[in-house]
């Protein structure tokens, strides 16, 4: 298995191609980092050139105006994450390990939601959230996010709980434990990996979203999320200072970078499992 025969120009060519692809993948990041330490004028005149001196003022200025949106994003993602994990573990366990009337029909209803495209939901969700008088509050993002993200999570959790050996729960039942106890003390501790997978995929999706916030958060800038602010800027609203923006981009990437790299294993797994199940 270890011996992979390749020789001559073939090796050289394929290694070269791999290197080129890798560089191209990193190009946006490198451009962003390079821009973030240059002054606006320098970027416009010499886009590709490396900075002659580091202009850290960009970061100082960016920090001031981007901190609030980033905190908003983190707050929304954090509250949503907790709620998603609660809802997903409860429903996943009920569908995967509990026996009750109508289980199959109800689970089919959960699966069927996967067919509804995001686009079609925007207008009615706006109507509903507006009817609840929640527009321009954090809940305008949190509630639809929990509702949307739970589906994928339940599908993952259901199959995880279903595949847990029955004996474990039988033993607990003989010892007189109720199903609530089994859930809290047996199933939940075991499901940490699957919940990490659900959590990290949800957080990435929520942090990245800028369409729904643009619809639901039309009021003041103080409650807007990070990606929404960047999107508004792309649409021509806000600062034109490219150095400042690039610095803000770098700062705004950090939370996602920390979240994903700390759950890297689960993130990669979530992508693969999610794809195969979906």
């Amino acid at each position, binding site marked *: 298995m270890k011996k992979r025969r390749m020789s001559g120009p073939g090796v050289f060519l394929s290694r070269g191609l791999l290197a080129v692809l890798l560089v191209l993948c990193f190009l946006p990041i490198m451009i962003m980092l390079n821009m973030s330490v240059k002054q606006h004028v320098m970027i416009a005149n010499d886009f590709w050139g490396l900075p002659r001196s580091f202009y850290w003022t960009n970061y100082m200025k960016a920090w001031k105006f981007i901190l609030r949106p980033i905190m908003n994003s983190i707050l929304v993602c954090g509250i949503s994450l907790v709620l998603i994990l609660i809802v997903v573990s409860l429903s996943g366990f009920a569908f995967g390990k509990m026996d009750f009337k109508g289980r199959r029909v109800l689970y089919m209803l959960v699966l069927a939601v996967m067919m509804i495209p995001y686009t079609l*939901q925007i207008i009615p969700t706006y109507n509903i959230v507006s009817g609840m008088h929640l527009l321009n509050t954090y809940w305008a993002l949190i509630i639809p996010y929990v509702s949307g993200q739970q589906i994928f999570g339940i599908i993952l959790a259901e199959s995880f709980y279903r595949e847990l050996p029955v004996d474990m729960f039988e033993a607990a039942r003989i010892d007189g434990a109720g199903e609530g106890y089994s859930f809290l003390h047996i199933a939940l501790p075991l499901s940490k990996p699957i919940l990490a997978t659900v959590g990290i995929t949800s957080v990435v999706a929520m942090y990245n979203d800028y369409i729904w916030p643009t619809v639901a958060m039309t009021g003041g800038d103080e409650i807007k999320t990070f990606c929404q602010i960047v999107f508004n800027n792309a649409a021509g609203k806000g600062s034109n200072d490219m150095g400042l923006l690039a610095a803000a981009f770098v700062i705004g990437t950090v939370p996602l970078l920390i979240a994903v790299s700390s759950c890297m294993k689960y993130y990669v797994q979530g992508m*693969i499992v999610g794809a195969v199940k979906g």
Partner: protein
Amino acid sequence: MKKSLGSKMLPYLFILPTLVLMVIFSYYAIINAIYTSFTDSVYGTTSAFVGLENYARAFQDKIFLTSFINQLLLTAAAVFNSVFFPLLASELLFFVKHSKLANIIKTLFVVPMMVPTIITIFIWKYLYNPNFGINTILRRMGLKSLAHNWLNDETTALLCIILIGFPFISCMYFLIMHNGLNMISGELYEAALVDGATPMQVVRFIHVPNLKPYINTIVTLSLINSLSGFGLVAATTNGSPGYSTMIPALYMYKIAFGDGKFGYASACGCVLFIVIIILTLASRKFFGNKEGA
């Protein structure tokens, strides 16, 4: 063993939050969308029943109809890019001998995924800027005549949107493909080597046929992703210049939250929904992987 009423109710208590959210935000929502499509609702406030008027209008709306052609081009390109480049990268990686090095390269391919999508799009917009970015390179190479306002030119705008994210490797499709490639039994590969197969033959006759379920999954996923999203176009050209990059979902969004015509927008949304359902079912039929594969 007879269960108490409490333990009988417990499962329903467990799924209650899910059901409440699902009934309101999915099932009521879709009924609401269909109902709204038969009204002249403006921002969801006033609404009178107008029958099929919105649908009749949608099928005569030139912008709406041509936006499907743009969507078709974008989707075809997206599906191709989601299969070809991840496959290329996975194959190149497969033939890297040192497993440690291969692992490092794989991780490196994942890193750019952590940059928020909107930022990557923004950086690409800088590259397409009329005054710098790609144009700087063209000018230095003496190809001044090629330099122009990429995103503001009807002939290049759509192509430029398609190329955003090149080389399309830092995405979940690469992870799926790479995973699939490593799932192929080493015995097949060994046997091919004994028979003196070249790397190209290994790829052609062992990898690609065995990767089929993964390729099919990627086709279906990227198809749905591309059809249902409009964030990319919204953040780059917003449908301009003219309507040369307009796509149905973005059109719907702009009618709804630009003009406030929720009724008409919902009708456009419902037409798009039906198209997505048909295409999804068709792709499941042609490319669908077996249940739980």
